[in-house]
């Protein structure tokens, strides 16, 4: 026989609606091709876009994809028109030679300080999209041209016509070495499998892929992985650190196979006669990205928004700010495209609607008479939705029981961007914050009645 438990549900408080108007405009900044994708989508949906990039001409944003565009019709069909559409679109204002110097504010009310050349311009906007290129770092110093990273190898691949060569030497036996410094980056598994399959099918190259853990949780990759194995590409999982030996003409890759049954009898493997070893580089976040993330108070994982929290693919913890390109997380270009489009759609949701109705009950509220301005809530808020008004805007606000003209002088929650999670309320050492729709008294009363 089952008994119904006593349950306290989150109170269903009738909403108190406040309407705010959001102007349909955004600032898009960065140096990654995904930026164009986002700007193009948003402009096509009627949003006024100010597009900032650091180059002389906007076409230069596509330079990392230049080879891919020349080599692949599908990629060209997608990307070339974007560049043209953006240049011809009157609702996109392109600022060349520009970068974001500083940014502050919130959804509907951002202030972006732009440096165009050496001129300063302040742009006021409703939402922000940014997309930067990660900076590749090689885990090992390249000893000779037979050892390359993916960036270099892709550039070889993208321009080849006919046979496949690296600096004059034919490529016939190649190994991809992933995860050397332990970073979980899917793009490398995806690239190794796709490039490996391409090489196998077109040049009958002997291909080996070494990793600690193969990551195939990307659309279609499970199948491609199976096809790759069936085609004769050999996949190994290694333990410890593999070692590359030998000279430009013939290298050996020695490692310990992780599939050995017993630790006492390690399976030592040596792949000999390799002419090319591709070692996965790691991407680190560029300076402008780090600065923006920090100024906007955006939750990050080592300088990137992803990859781990499924709540933040493209969108960020700050309402009205989305990211694409490597800023979300280094991705294989075509996967990055999907993320960029989803980010753009997310941003459209927040700037394309005209008038928004906010329920100002479903938020937290500070009692300024109890606030010690200790900054705990300011630091803990995951959505950067609390300001200390003493040091910020000096609005005139009538506090409880105070006379006209008194200033707030305490922490203050921005109701437009507050998500009502209650972290501030639970951390406040002065018990100065309550969730308007779910104050402490509800919980205390329930516990008193039911225990």
């Amino acid at each position, binding site marked *: 026989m089952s008994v119904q438990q006593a349950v306290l549900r989150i109170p269903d408080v009738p909403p108190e609606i406040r309407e705010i108007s959001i102007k349909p405009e955004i600032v898009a900044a960065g140096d990654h091709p995904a930026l164009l994708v986002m700007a193009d989508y948003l402009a096509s949906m009627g949003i006024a876009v100010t597009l900032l990039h650091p180059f002389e001409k906007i076409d230069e944003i596509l330079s990392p994809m230049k080879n891919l565009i020349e080599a692949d019709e599908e990629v060209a069909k997608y990307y070339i028109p974007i560049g043209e559409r953006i240049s011809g679109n009157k609702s996109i204002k392109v600022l060349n030679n520009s970068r974001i110097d500083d940014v502050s504010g919130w959804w509907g009310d951002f202030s972006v300080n732009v440096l165009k050349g050496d001129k300063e311009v302040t742009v006021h906007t409703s939402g922000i999209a940014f997309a930067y290129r990660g900076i590749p770092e090689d885990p090992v110093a390249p000893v000779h041209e037979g050892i390359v990273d993916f960036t270099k190898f892709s550039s070889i691949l993208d321009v080849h016509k006919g046979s496949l060569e690296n600096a004059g030497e034919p490529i016939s036996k190649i190994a991809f070495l992933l995860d050397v410094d332990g970073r979980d980056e899917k793009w490398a598994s995806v690239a190794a499998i796709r490039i490996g399959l391409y090489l196998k099918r077109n040049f009958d190259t002997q291909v080996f892929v070494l990793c600690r853990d193969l990551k195939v949780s990307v659309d279609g990759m499970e199948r491609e992985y199976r096809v790759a194995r069936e085609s004769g590409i050999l996949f190994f999982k290694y333990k410890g650190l593999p070692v590359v030996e030998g000279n430009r003409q013939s290298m050996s890759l020695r490692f310990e196979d992780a599939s050995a049954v017993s630790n006492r009898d390690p399976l030592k493997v040596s792949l000999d006669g390799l002419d090319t070893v591709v070692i996965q580089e790691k991407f680190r976040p560029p300076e402008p990205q780090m600065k923006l993330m920090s100024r906007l108070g955006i939750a990050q994982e080592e300088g990137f928004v992803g990859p781990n929290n499924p709540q933040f693919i493209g969108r960020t913890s700050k309402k009205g700010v989305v990211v694409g390109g490597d800023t979300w997380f280094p991705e294989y270009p075509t996967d990055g495209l999907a993320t960029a489009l989803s980010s753009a759609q997310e941003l459209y949701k927040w700037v394309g609607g005209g008038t928004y109705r906010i329920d100002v009950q479903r938020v937290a509220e500070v009692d300024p008479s109890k606030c010690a301005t200790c900054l705990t809530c300011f630091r803990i808020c995951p959505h950067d939705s609390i300001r200390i008004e003493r040091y910020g805007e000096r609005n005139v606000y009538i506090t409880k029981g105070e006379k006209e003209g008194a200033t707030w002088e305490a922490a203050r929650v921005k109701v437009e961007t507050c998500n009502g999670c209650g972290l501030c309320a639970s951390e406040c*050492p*002065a018990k100065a914050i309550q969730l308007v729709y779910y104050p402490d008294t509800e919980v205390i009363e329930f516990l008193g009645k039911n225990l």
Partner: protein
Amino acid sequence: MIIAEQKPIEEILEMLALHKKILLAGCGACVTVCQAGGEKEVGVLASQIRMARKEAGNPIEIIETTLTRQCEPEFMEEARDVMNEVEAVLSIACGIGVQLMAQTFYDKPAYPGLNTKFLGLPEEHGVFTERCAACGDCVLHLTGGICPVARCSKSLLNGPCGGSQNGKCEIDPDLDCAWQLIYDRLKALGKLDNLEKIIPPKKWSTSRDGGPRKIVREDLRI
């Protein structure tokens, strides 16, 4: 600000052993900010004491309150009524507050729930470090804004002891060598020649060593 830390619970329970009804008084200033004695902490400590005394079969009644500050006589009035109902007050303000409690409510014992540790600031949220020793004779203008009294383990005034390793103090390797920090800062300011000026032996009489201190401002007196 003043940084304090809660006393071990055993000490607190011992202080309260003979009492059956007390006031637990928090403070809305420094100890709220360093998360040792604000309203939230009052609730936590009160629960902890109640639970311990219930377990021991000797329940205690605790009235909880938090004063605006425990270092102003006027704010003591916030507790006047309730102090009539209790046997004693456990104050989780800094040592100043405990003393003002004792002085204001002369006939009731005032117990300290905290150890007042130092004057400092948060290095990061939740990590508090000492910055000022209240020596009464500040030399920060000579040392690039870094205090050799509070931050050097030996309170040396004229340069490093020479025992530091990789910028860390030889006495406490978790501490940065204050004189390394001073050197770096003076170098960044282009004022390394400050190091050539000798700071004379410190007048410790202006600090705690000179006895209890007092400042009288005739211009402010009402």
